[in-house]
């Protein structure tokens, strides 16, 4: 059961904010979904290995070759704010 406190915690983790008047209905929707997924509690999975990967490949490496990287202007073309060839963000050091 997701409480108001849980909601604030996961919203902060998700870097999301919601208008005060919407919170109650979103908590309700999340709890409906949670009620549905809680059914897995009925299945005993003791000792079953979790499937972290579904393909048998582990640590796939490609050959260490020098290839041209993407042109900087091309990379920056979709950025909302750039300056002097860099992404521009608000000041982070006070």
């Amino acid at each position, binding site marked *: 059961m997701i409480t108001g406190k849980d909601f604030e915690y996961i919203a902060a983790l998700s870097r999301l904010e919601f208008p005060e008047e919407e919170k109650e209905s*979103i908590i309700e929707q999340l709890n409906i979904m949670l009620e549905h997924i809680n059914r897995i509690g009925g299945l005993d999975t003791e000792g079953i290995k979790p499937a972290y990967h579904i393909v048998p490949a582990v640590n796939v490496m490609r050959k260490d070759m020098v290839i041209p990287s993407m042109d900087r202007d*091309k990379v920056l073309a979709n950025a909302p704010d750039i300056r002097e060839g860099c992404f521009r963000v608000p000041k982070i050091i006070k």
Partner: protein
Amino acid sequence: MKALKLHELTAHEIRDMLRKREISAIEVIEDTYCRIDSVEDSINSFITLTREKAYEDAKKVEKTIKEGQEPPDLAGIPMAVKDNICTEGIRTTCASGMLADFVPPYSAEVYERLVNDSCITIGKTNMDEFAMGDLGNPCDGSAAAVASGEVCFSLGSDMGGSIRQFAALCGVVGMKPTYGLVSRYGLITSAPSLDQIGPITRDVHDCALVMNCIAGHDSKDSASVRIQAEDYRSALISDVKGFRIGIPKEYFGEGTDNGIKKLILEQIKVLEDLGAHGEEMSLPHSEYAMQAYHIIASAEASSNLARYDGVRYGFRAGQYDNLEDLYVKTRSRGFGAGVKRSIMLGAYVLSSDRYDFYYKKALQIRTLIREDFNRAFEKYDVIITPVTPGVGLDSWKKIEDTISVYMTDVYTAPVNIAGIAAMSVPCGVKDGLPVSMQIIGRPFDEKRILQAAFACEQNSRIGGYQHEI
């Protein structure tokens, strides 16, 4: 000029006409846009159309043909690409405010391969935001564009069943390939362990042609598997003699429309008459598949959509106090309600004190579901099931609450959880709406799936579904 009626032709039929010079590549494109202009208002398949580029590309194909060279199978064939597959220089939005103006600086591997084969891009198709199956908008332009004759085939993506379900609802053919067979490089996905790109086509033959082009190892996708390239056309034989077909009882229960069950069982009977053997069997952990799917999909969404921060690309909110506030405001305004709900649920199931109960357990169920299929495939060559619990979009419209809408993935998501291959093939009509069945196969055994699908298509007692607009 011959009256083309493109919406009645398949890619391989158009290919043959192009090779025999009965039509020109430019006529094909003219006809395509003519069709789009007359039906798109009611279908709404596309987010972006690429008219100018399509004509340019068609001219190049025409030149090749005139020079007497044999073009590849899909040369000059009009295709649509789902708007979550990156196309260099062509806006790719994921139907999200977050990427409303995003023009990818590179192309997805699958797109590159089709373009190299001179396939013609007609446009980018509509979808629900980040392909999450959000409530109230169960649309997928990729299948609708094929069914309505706007294009010959399209590329879709299938995270929990989008390719197969929408192909089924529209009466066309859709394949979700084995995980690792088709490169995901350039696919904008919220759940990379579930998602695969695959073809939506008018018939099984076309599905094989598109698979021939897009399947195969790509070093840019770390999950891409190195396996021998196959010619899927060799599966286009109407022979299922000795095929062992599993019919899982969990998929034919109370939740499924009786009319759908009947049509599928009749189609299995057709295969049996051709020498296949059908048998009821069980996939015992199916009942937990949806729960595991929702946990895995939302957990991966919460992690994968973290990249949308308003810094490197995509939407950025106008007003903010500091960097943290920029992230929060950008994400809160850029994402739609359904995406935000998934991210929140994902953060919850991944949070440290819930992780074991939800996420880890979902991955254990994933193991069990995969083992169910592994065991089944020791005995059966293919498994046949319904694709959707009901026909048409009514099965969505009737339902008001969030969960029921998500339950529409119940027959398709287990395939994504197990990372195996499956195909949706039309098998009849109920109440004027198309019904399809799902053919599930062993990993990397797409050939056998295609073979069973081809036999169904060639020997159907019902006849094809007629698309009316």
